[in-house]
């Protein structure tokens, strides 16, 4: 009788461990998606272009949702690999974003300054240059007296 009781207790314990482990894994994996999403959102704030990476993140999320329904371990491995890849890609995307933002700032400042400078130069030297060129190309012309 004792043996049977021990057997049932062990079985219940094993079932409990197996079940709790699965629940924990599902939560952990979902947490990893959310943490990656947070990192991507932060990277976007720093100027990174997250258009492509967000597609991968969504694919990873859909794989996890499918895994939760079907339990296929291949799906979760694929999803976790994708999440790791995304994390690896983030620093370079942030660098690219920062460079792009610097370039944009430079353009925003340089555009009006260059325009003003060109306008000033044209205003000062434009007429002289125009007439000089006009004369240069017509220096051989003969003008008929009226």
């Amino acid at each position, binding site marked *: 009788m004792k043996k049977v009781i021990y057997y049932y207790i062990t079985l219940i314990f094993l079932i409990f461990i197996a079940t709790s482990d699965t629940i924990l894994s599902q939560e952990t994996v979902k947490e990893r998606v*959310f943490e990656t*999403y*947070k990192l*991507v*959102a*932060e990277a*976007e*704030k720093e100027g990174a272009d*997250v*258009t492509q*990476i*967000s*597609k991968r*993140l*969504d694919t990873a*999320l*859909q794989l996890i*949702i499918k895994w939760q329904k079907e339990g296929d371990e291949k799906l979760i491995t694929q999803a976790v690999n994708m999440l790791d890849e995304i994390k690896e890609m983030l620093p370079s995307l942030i660098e690219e974003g920062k460079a792009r933002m610097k370039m*944009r700032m430079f*353009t*925003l400042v340089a*555009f*009006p300054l260059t*325009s003003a400078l060109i306008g000033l130069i044209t205003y000062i030297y434009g*007429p002289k240059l125009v*007439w000089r060129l*006009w*004369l240069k190309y017509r*220096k051989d*012309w*003969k*003008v008929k*007296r009226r």
Partner: protein
Amino acid sequence: METLAEVQEGLEGEKKVIDEEVAAVILAIIIVAMVFAYTQLLLKDRVIEPFSAIGLLGPEMKIGDYPRTVRVNETIDLYMFIDNHEGRIMYYVVKAKLGDKNTLINSSKPADAPILTTYETILAHGQNRTLPVKLKIPREMTNARLIFELWALYENRTLSYTGRWVHLWLNVTSRI
């Protein structure tokens, strides 16, 4: 024959090759074009009116052909369209709820009804996604209201109702 200096002198007397008014108009056009180009440069990545959108599509992935009457536990095939124009990446959660004619829902208050299932998707700004929806209603109902609410999960773990929802009226029957 005139010397070059004489020609130049004569020409300088008639410098107004382009009329002053014409020159002013050309200058104005150039200035306006430059200001326009600059504003375009300034507003390039700015989202003036951020919004999220949700839409319900029929079984053919088109607006229309929605089921009106379904049987108990019959699979309802629909598609859901989600669009992000928030100017940032978004983690969307769609809650499918089963309400009835008394269920209240508006842009500030989500429906107080049982959740049938949830859908999740992550979209960058300007991206959209069409999700397949397969639902079953477990009991007979008249004027059942299948509600899809769009929620957003933010970085601080807040799940907020975006105020966007769609619904479908259905009669759920045990007979064909």
